[in-house]
């Protein structure tokens, strides 16, 4: 892996993902579980938990890189648009820094929906172990 390398993956928030997240973390806020509530707040349906995207990030780092010898040091994410059930998200991550002295990479990433709009973006720093 080297600075400038990019990685692309497609993720979909399926009903199983949504249900699994709720089952594990117990966040049943009506914004995420009631279409009626979400619509009353101006959304077109139940808004998926933003932290589901952090799960996708975990998958990307743990399973999609050329090496499994990695650990996440830090990450930040900003949510800019809602994600809805069955939304297909194109995830792109680019290596923006490599620090050989401490075997650390920095990525910038984004999730875009099918309209090409960025729904979330951020940074993640990983180390080689």
């Amino acid at each position: 892996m080297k600075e400038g390398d990019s990685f692309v993956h497609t993720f979909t928030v399926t009903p199983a993902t949504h249900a699994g997240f709720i089952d594990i973390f117990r966040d049943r806020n009506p914004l995420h579980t009631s279409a009626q509530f979400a619509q009353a707040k101006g959304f077109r349906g139940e808004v998926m938990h933003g932290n589901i995207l952090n799960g996708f990030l975990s998958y990307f780092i743990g399973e999609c890189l050329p090496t499994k010898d990695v650990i996440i040091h830090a990450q930040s994410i900003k949510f800019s648009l809602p994600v809805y059930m069955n939304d297909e998200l194109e995830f792109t991550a680019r290596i923006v820094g490599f620090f050989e002295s401490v075997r650390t990479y920095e990525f910038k990433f984004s999730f875009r929906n099918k309209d090409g709009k960025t729904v979330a973006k951020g940074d993640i720093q990983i180390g080689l172990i």
Partner: protein
Amino acid sequence: MDFNNIIKQVNDIFIDVLDNEDIKLTPETTAADVEDWDSLNHIQLVVAIEKHFKMRFTTAEINGWKNVGEMCVAIENRLKG
């Protein structure tokens, strides 16, 4: 940039990364003298320093530093080219 200016900037980086306004580095300071300067924070400190001074070090170089002073001398030498 002289040594005193470098150590002042490194001190500001330590304050930011370790979130500790009380840090006052001297050339003799080591990790044992600074609360929370552990192995994970060491990585964050090195990354922040390399980004701030726009330079990269090798593992061998940083492992050779015995204290903050040696780190700042290395930065000073690198800046001199």
